[in-house]
C-alpha cells in the first residue's frame, strides 16, 4: 500500500534534481562555451510479492535519475574584437596546463600574463606545440590563423594545440569551464580557430523555461497524488477502525 507514496517520492526527488540542473543551465546562459545538460531518467522496476488471487508478482516502477547528459552542440560565435578571444569552429578543445595536470576547455577567452604568456583568466598557460606560448611587445599585433598558428611582426611564434577525444561525454567537468579526463588526446581535425570571437553558451532559454514549467507541474501533480493517497489511507482507517455496533 505504501508503494504509491514511495513511487511518488522517487519522482519528486528526481524532479528536484532536474530543477537543479535547469537552474545551473540558466545561471550559465552567459558563460562562454557552456554546454547545456539534461537529466536522463530510468525506470527502476521492483517486483512485489504475489498476493492472494494474483497469478504472478506485481511489478511497480520507480523513477531514478540515471545520468546528466551534456549536449555537445556548438554555441553561437559572438564577436568581441579582443585579440586573445578565440572560438573553436568545430569539435575540439584547447589544452590548458593546471596544477592538476593538463585540462581542456572550449572557452577561448585568454589573456597575457606578466611574462607575456597566453593564459586563461585563472593564469593557467595555454599549450602550443612546444608548451606555453610567449609573446613580446615587439611582436606587434598578434594574428592567430584558423589552424592555430600564432604570428606577429617577426613571423611565426607558435601553434595553438587543439585536441579531441574518442568519447567527449566522458570528460569530467572541473568548473571554471575546464574538463579533465584520463583519455589520450588526439589532434582535432577540421576545426578552425576564429580570432576575436567567443563561443557562447548553447543554453536555449525557451527550452529551459518550458522544461522548468513541465517539471514544476509534474511535481505538483505527484504531490496531489500523495495527498489523495494519504486521505484514502486516513478514510480507510476511520471507516475500518470504527467501532462495530
Amino acid at each position, binding site marked *: 500500500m505504501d508503494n504509491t507514496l514511495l513511487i511518488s517520492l522517487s519522482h519528486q526527488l528526481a524532479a528536484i534534481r532536474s530543477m537543479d540542473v535547469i537552474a545551473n543551465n540558466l545561471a550559465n546562459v552567459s*558563460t562562454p562555451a557552456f554546454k547545456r545538460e539534461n537529466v536522463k531518467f530510468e525506470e527502476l522496476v521492483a517486483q512485489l510479492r504475489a498476493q492472494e488471487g494474483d497469478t504472478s508478482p506485481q511489478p511497480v516502477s520507480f523513477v531514478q535519475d540515471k545520468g546528466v547528459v551534456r549536449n555537445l552542440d556548438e554555441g553561437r560565435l559572438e564577436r568581441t574584437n579582443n585579440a586573445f578571444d578565440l572560438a573553436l569552429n568545430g569539435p575540439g578543445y584547447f589544452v590548458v596546463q593546471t596544477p592538476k595536470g593538463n585540462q581542456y576547455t572550449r572557452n577561448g577567452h585568454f*589573456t597575457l600574463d606578466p611574462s607575456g604568456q597566453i593564459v586563461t*583568466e585563472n593564469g593557467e598557460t595555454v599549450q602550443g606545440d612546444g608548451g606555453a606560448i610567449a609573446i613580446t611587445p615587439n611582436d606587434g599585433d598578434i594574428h592567430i590563423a584558423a589552424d592555430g598558428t600564432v604570428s606577429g*611582426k617577426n613571423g611565426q611564434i607558435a601553434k595553438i594545440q587543439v585536441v579531441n577525444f574518442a568519447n567527449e561525454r566522458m570528460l569530467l567537468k572541473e568548473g571554471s569551464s575546464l574538463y579533465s579526463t584520463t583519455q589520450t588526446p588526439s589532434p582535432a581535425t577540421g576545426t578552425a580557430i576564429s580570432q576575436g570571437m567567443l563561443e557562447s553558451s548553447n543554453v536555449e532559454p525557451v527550452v529551459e*523555461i518550458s522544461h*522548468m514549467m513541465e517539471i514544476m507541474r509534474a511535481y*505538483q501533480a505527484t504531490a496531489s497524488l500523495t495527498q489523495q493517497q494519504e486521505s484514502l489511507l486516513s478514510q480507510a482507517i476511520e471507516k475500518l477502525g470504527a467501532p462495530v455496533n
Partner: protein
Amino acid sequence: MRAMSIAATGMLAQQTNVEVIANNLANMNTTGYKQQRAEFEDLLYQNVEMPGTATSDSGTLLPSGIQLGAGVRTSAVYRIGGQGDLSSTKNPYDLAINGPGYFHIVEPDGTDAYTRAGNFALSPQGQLVTDQGFTVAPGIIIPTNATTVTVNSQGQVQVTTPGNPTPNTVGQLELTRFPNEGGLQAIGNNLYLETASSGAPQSALPGTIGYGMIQQGFLETSNVDPVNEITSLITAQRAYEMNSKVVTAADQMMSTTSQMAGA
C-alpha cells in the same frame, strides 16, 4: 533546494554584467576609455555518480554519470584594448596615440601612471600636464614666447620663437607598453597603474616597431560601440529575468511540498 541558490548566482552574475555595460555607456564620450566586458565561468561540480565508473564486472561503463553544477561566477571584467576613433580638435596640446602604447604620467606623489587620454594642457610654469595638472613625463617645458608648438609622429616636441626661423626641439615624448595590458589597474581619471600582472613597463620612441605614432590635434575617442552595448544590455536583462523565474518555480515547488505536509 539547490535550484534557488544556483539561480541566485545567475542573477548576481547578470547584475555585474549590467553594471559593466552601464559603465561602458556612461563612458561613451570619455577620451581614451576602453570598453570593458564581464566574463563568466561555471562553478564547481558535485560528483554524484562519476562518468566512466564500471556498471558491471564485464567492463560496461556509466556513459555520462551525474555531475551537479553549483551555478556561475564572474571570473573577470576585462578591458578590450581596441583602438578608438581619432577625432580632430585642432588643439596643439591634444595628442592621440595611433596604435599601441601609453603616455607616461607622473602623479604629484611621484607615482608613475599611464594613460591613453592625450588631452594635455600647460601648467602656469609652461610645463606639459594632464587636465588634472599631473606632469607628462619627462616634463617638457614650452617657452612662454613660443609661437607654434609641433609634436611630430615620433613624439619630438618642437617650438618656434619669434626672430628664430628654425624650430627648436624642447623635448621628446616616449610611449610605454606592458606585456599584459589587460593587467593594468584603472584608478579613474583615465589613468592606469602598473601591477604584478601587467608586467614591467617598456618604453620606446613613438613609431618604433610595436608602438603607435602620435597625432597632434587629435583625441582618441572611447572604443565603446553603443549598439553592441544596448544589445548586451537587453540580453543581460532577459537572462536576469529567466534566473528570477527559476527562483519563483523553485519556490512554488517548495510551497507544494509544505502543503503536502499540511494535508
